[in-house]
């Protein structure tokens, strides 16, 4: 599910073939060199005598690498030129790396309104994507192995990564630059949808949060308000407008929680709220262990209902 050897986009495909060619070439050279070494050690002296000469070094150590590398270098540069190329009309997405999650923003596009989400990058199949990345704190690195290389998220700089998803599916991305305590638990999902599904998703995401329709969910929303969750999280359409943590307007629609750590359901949400500092110590959110089981279920239920 997360592999550079299973390319799902053009760039990853190109790099995959580069990898294959270099691996095969490398193995052949390795066999040649070690073969010669063993021959030099074990062959009969008169048979190996031709090898014990300056000519061996000139041919094997100087001419051969120069010829091989003179071919590899332009090939590598060509792959580099064709990889990660900005395309006009690409879908712009902005991502900000934070300790230890991903803020995702879809800017307004003609009549489509802007909106934010977190830890989930949803893209249409076949349309070029241009992700602008930066960081809110320390350096992170954005990497979805199935779609190509990584790009660092550096405070004060905006980098871009361009790619096109060619197969619908769910892929996993990770932070590749060590970013502190929970670097190991900083992942996200990339969901590639057919264009029509993507448009539908986008329209849904831009809407304000759903109103709770059951008493327990109303209770959950009340707990959310009273607990001060809104000082860090935004739920569009309610008074919660904190900017510090992930946007929760449609948190129920996401596949995973905790930056790609757990499947998203009431149980994991409740566990997360009560035990963040146990499950992901060092994360910026405190544990809310004092909530009663019933309250916790109501709160988690409310969040889960925010489809």
């Amino acid at each position: 599910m997360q592999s550079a050897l299973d390319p799902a986009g053009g760039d990853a495909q190109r790099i995959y073939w580069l990898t294959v060619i270099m691996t095969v070439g490398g193995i052949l050279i390795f066999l040649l060199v070690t073969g010669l070494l063993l021959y030099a050690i074990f062959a009969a002296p008169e048979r190996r005598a031709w090898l014990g000469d300056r000519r061996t070094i000139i041919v094997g150590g100087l001419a051969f690498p120069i010829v091989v590398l003179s071919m590899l270098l332009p090939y590598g540069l060509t792959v580099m030129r064709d990889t990660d190329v900005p395309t006009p009309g690409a879908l712009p997405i902005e991502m900000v790396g934070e300790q230890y999650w991903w803020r995702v923003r879809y800017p307004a596009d003609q009549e489509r309104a802007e909106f934010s989400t977190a830890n989930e990058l949803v893209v249409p199949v076949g349309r070029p994507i241009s992700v602008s990345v930066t960081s809110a704190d320390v350096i992170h690195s954005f990497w979805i192995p199935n779609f190509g290389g990584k790009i660092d998220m550096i405070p004060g700089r905006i980098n871009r990564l361009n790619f096109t998803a060619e197969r619908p599916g769910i892929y996993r991305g990770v932070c590749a630059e060590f970013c502190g305590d929970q670097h190991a638990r900083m992942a996200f999902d990339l969901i590639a949808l057919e264009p029509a599904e993507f448009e539908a998703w986008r329209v849904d995401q831009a809407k304000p949060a759903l109103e709770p329709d059951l008493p327990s969910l109303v209770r959950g929303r009340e707990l959310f308000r009273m607990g001060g969750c809104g000082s860090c999280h935004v739920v569009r359409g309610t008074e919660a407008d904190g900017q510090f943590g992930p946007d929760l307007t449609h948190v129920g629609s996401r596949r995973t929680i905790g930056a790609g750590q757990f499947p998203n359901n009431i149980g994991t949400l409740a566990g997360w709220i009560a035990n963040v500092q146990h499950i992901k110590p060092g994360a910026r959110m405190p544990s809310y262990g004092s909530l009663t089981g019933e309250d916790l279920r109501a709160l988690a239920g409310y969040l889960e209902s925010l489809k």
Partner: protein
Amino acid sequence: MNAPELPKAFERGEEELPNPLPRPEGEFEALKRAWKPPRGLRFLTAVNNTYVGVWYVGTAFLFFILAGILALIMRVQLARPENDLVGHGLYNQLFTMHGTVMMFLFAVPAVEAASVYLLPNMQAARDLPFPRLSAYAFWAYFVGGLVFFGTIFFGLSPDGGWFMYPPLTSTKYSPADNADWWLLGIGFIEISAIAGAIEIIVGVMKTRAVGMSLDKLPIYSWAMLVFAVMIVIGFPAIILGTLLLEMERAFDWPFFIAERGGDPLLWQHLFWFFGHPEVYIIFLPATGMVSMIVPTMAQTPLVGYRLIVLALIATGFLSFGLWVHHMFATGLPKMSLSFFSAASTAVAVPSGIQVFAWIATIASGRMRLTTPSLFVIGFLFIFTLGGLTGVMVAVAPFDWQAHDSYFVVAHLHYVLIGGMVFPLFAAFYYWVPAASKRALSERLGRWVFGLMFLGVNVTFLPMHITGLIGMPRRVYTYPVEMGWDALNLVSTIGAFMIAAGVAIFLYDLARNFRFTLEDNAGNVWNASTLEWLPNGTYNTRSIPSVVSRDPLWEQPNLSKDVEEGRYYLPGTVTGGREALVTSPFDARPQYILQVPGPGWQPVLAAVFTAAFFLLLTVKLVFPSVICGVLAVGCVIWWLWETDPGPVRPPADIGGGIVLPVYATGPMNHSWWAMIVLMVVAGMVFTCLIFSYLFLWLVNPGAWPPQGVRIPDWIWPSLSAFLYCASGALVAVASRQLRGDDRRSPRSVPVLIGVALPLVCGASAIDLWMQWETGLSPSAHAYGAAVYAITSLQIFFVLTTLVMGAYTIARWLAGRLDNVRRTTFDNTMLFWYYTAGQGLVALLVVHGFPRLTGGL
């Protein structure tokens, strides 16, 4: 003074040796007495290269074991997914310490240590030219290194990765002292590495066997020369980097804080400008060792000596064009990346040359499969594979995938274990007979090799795949169902195989290693080079002249003649320790260097230096300053005994060669050391100017920022005038010290005394006028950069102040005259450097913003 020409002495046959037999009564006893090591507790004050070398190697190996244990803990943690053996906090400290200790406390010191032991012996020098400097380097490293490692037991170890990228390591995200331990601890151990490098450069260039011209220099010496030059060029970048980051942490000068005009990428440039050459700094000495071992084991001269020299020099240069390949994913323009891609590919060629040279040598002889040979063969296997994956990651698009994944972990361990650890183990097995009563066990050696070779491949081969299927580096755990479980378990098993190999090696060492010099196991391999001559603490009884690269093979009676004292300088002419200084190109004898003997000064200076940095780390500023002053005091005490002057008339060393026992000017060994030190200082300064320009580049329209005024041009002009004037006064003083009649004119201290306030005034004006404009060092990176340049200059001026005062003191004590003037020469060179650096600093700080007009 000119080098005495040698009309016939060393390019003729062996029959007429320089000194006749029998040797005079008591000559050998006097030599032994001069080199006798101190006994009892005073043994710690020994400075001779053999003792310091062995301690140094032992300490480096201790850190290899310790850092290896850290790695084992990490491998156990990663053996299965979601393991909770160690938490994230400890794990992050573990991998930071593993990398840091392996790189800074094991790899560089180990190769430097080996050369402290081997280099003089291989060149038949009596000792290194500055034995107290190597003792200082060792003790500073020993004390500092152990304390630094000890932090792991208190949870105080740095945890930002061995690369310490800000902003993660800046005060905001790492408020505790952990990061300071890295910055001060490692910054200071680099100073020890530089001290060693200066020693090695002067040692290779100036203290060789007679006639060991550049074409006859052992490849190991070539490798160490290139190694030391690379340290001198590369390490200043990291020293400056640590200085800047520590200033940011301590005083809030925003070099790396983006909101205030800094840039985190500046650190990465400085770090990797050191960090990539570092890999070759570790690798080249190891190839030098291999080039010594292979000819011995194949019993044939090395094939392609000149090509190997080419490879070493080319690697030395090209490795400085690779640093950005650690930054391929930082979003720099593809064009910029491509230059580094080209250089990274190019550096493969010299490595190819070396590999094929060894293959050709093996083919031209008959390889005996001893333990050293096995390690060399293992090295060739592992390193070739690591080199090939190195070419792969040099291709940027592939690196975008591999970067910061386990693929790179695999690659770097193949290169470093293959390229450095295996040759080092080969070297242990190969050279132990030169320092021990018994050789190490060949039978156990095979087990050590077998376990380590299999272990390395079992551990790291799977990691190539682990990385390509998506596992990033530096994660303390990983989820189930990622497909990484089995591969990680295999890697963990491999790691324990390596550990088992190392454990058997330790057992072998304990059973067979018995340190000795006079009755060592001897030339058990029938090697061809001079370290296998019979020796003692004085190294060889007499200093041979050599006519080939394989003297022990081509001069059959050499051992016997050297031991009987038939070659040069068979005794001591001053009654103390001496070394023969030779010319750098063709190794003609130039003068007899009076080598300092044991003393507490280097030990105490090192302990106080370490205490200064370590106490500073824990913010005990006052005790720290006291230790700093004591350290400087000890250094002055130590220097006071040096620069002895011509204590006797020129002496006959044999073969009709009469040499002075003292020399000054460009022939002098400390003149060379001073030049190298100036290169180090110049590199620190160059890196600082680079940082200034880099910060300009990332701050369009804000250089200087709004509301900052550049001081009026009159002030920098005055400052520049003062620098020039002080330099001129010192030049006049130097003219006063000409001639051979041993005068010590009164004008010299007066001139220096006048020049000192001038040079101090120059930098004081510079600082004061920036302060006057209200420029704040913490408001914006511009101010930080300006004050950094000014501060560095002030540091140099203060050092000049101490050196000037010291020179005056020497005059007052009657230890300075126009012949005995090495102290003055050193001060003079440093003075010129300081004044020159001051002028360039003024030009940049005041000229550049005017030139660009705030662009």
